């Protein structure tokens, strides 16, 4: 009896923390050295995909403070200006939560199109902030490649998130 409630508790804990654990893993994964030429410059914003997906489909499991913490962690580990990714991920999160009715449909293409819009918008803002931060006009080309790689990876990650949602969250 006791054991059963314990496993029940463990299960509900896993359900509640699953999106958070996934995004934390993506944050760490995105700074691991790959040895692929130029990949480190255009590393996809994996955490942005995670924050977008869970903010749209399960905003209760992706609260604002958590998004902020992941953003700051990503900033610190990547060595970028601290606060930048925190701000961008918060923007993505805010748009997703407020536009849930539109974005949270069964249609995969609506979700993808939504992500493309949000990701491009967030990165343009990010590029402007960084140019102001370093007081120099940085080449936008790496940012464009980074966004393109991120957008291309969305279907795969969204599929994996969807599977994990089916297995763990709807059981």
């Amino acid at each position, binding site marked *: 009896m006791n054991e059963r409630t314990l496993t029940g508790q463990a299960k509900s804990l896993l359900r509640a923390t699953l999106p958070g654990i996934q995004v934390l893993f993506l944050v760490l994964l995105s700074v691991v050295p790959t040895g692929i030429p130029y*990949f480190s*410059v255009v590393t996809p914003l994996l955490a942005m995909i995670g924050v977008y997906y869970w903010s749209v489909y399960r905003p209760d499991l992706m609260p604002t403070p958590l998004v902020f913490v992941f953003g700051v*962690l990503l900033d610190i*580990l990547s060595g970028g200006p601290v606060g930048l990714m925190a701000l961008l991920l918060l923007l993505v999160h805010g748009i997703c*939560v407020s536009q849930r009715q539109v974005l949270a449909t069964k249609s995969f293409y609506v979700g993808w199109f939504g992500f493309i819009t949000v990701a491009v918008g967030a990165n343009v803002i990010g590029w402007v902030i960084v140019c102001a*931060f370093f007081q120099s006009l940085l080449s936008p080309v790496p940012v464009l490649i*980074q966004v393109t790689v991120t957008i291309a990876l969305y279907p795969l990650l969204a599929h994996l998130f969807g599977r994990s949602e089916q297995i763990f969250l709807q059981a």
Partner: protein
Amino acid sequence: MRAQGGKMLRLAIPLKVMVQRFAFALFVVASAALLILAKADIAMMEKVRTVVTDAAAPVLGVLSQPVVAINNAVDGVENLIDLREENARLKGENARLLHWQGVARRLEQENARYRSLLQVQFEPPVDPVVARIIADSGGPFVRTVLVNAGRRAGIRKGQAVVNDDGLVGRIVEAGEKSSRVLLLTDLNSRIPVVMEASRHRAILAGDNSARPRLEFIPVSAQVSAGDRVVTSGDGGLFPPGLAIGIVADLGDGLPKVQPFADREQIEYVRVLRFDLPRLGVGQADADMVGAGQ
């Protein structure tokens, strides 16, 4: 009563939304405040950064292991494929290097003799620490890597970081167990250099591209493609004569340098613990210079 209850319920939902919006605005403002603090570059932010990277270092160390293993396996296969060619090349190189070894020995003795005649102060010995890169991926805006050694291993801010090919960058943040290396291609990297043959001094300035620029070259200096660029040792932080790269592109503006150290091939680096005691470049000064750059 019933009507009042209904009103309460109608009020409760907007209240929840309002609290959520307030929390959202609060965190957006916090992010903006962090950006301003980061720009101000205060000591507290650096402390926070090093504490977080120290905490994450063991996890990143483990996560980067499979990548290392895969890369090693790929390298192994590649090596097998061109074993014959490689062997021929190495034999040729060995013959050439043996000749150079003889020359170097003779010059070393000659130099030592001249130094003792002139009573030149010897450079302090350089004491390297080997560290592994555990995080790399600053994204499009910065060129930095994290290594798995820090203050406990004697690493301090400002020290030079090299690999087998040449200079990689310098330490900008030293935690207890991890340190951040600013690569020489980063926008904020400025390294005092000297053209090996002509002895003209310049500053190697990164601009986030693969090839940093040479700034402040004397007007009279003749720079041509293929010139070797090495550290000058000015400022007392870097040992002089560390190989950096060759002038690759004269272009229209400032000449560009192709570094010898290929960023993507870097797995292990050596941090050079180099102190100039006679100049009094101790920890405090090193920190000051590091912060000033």
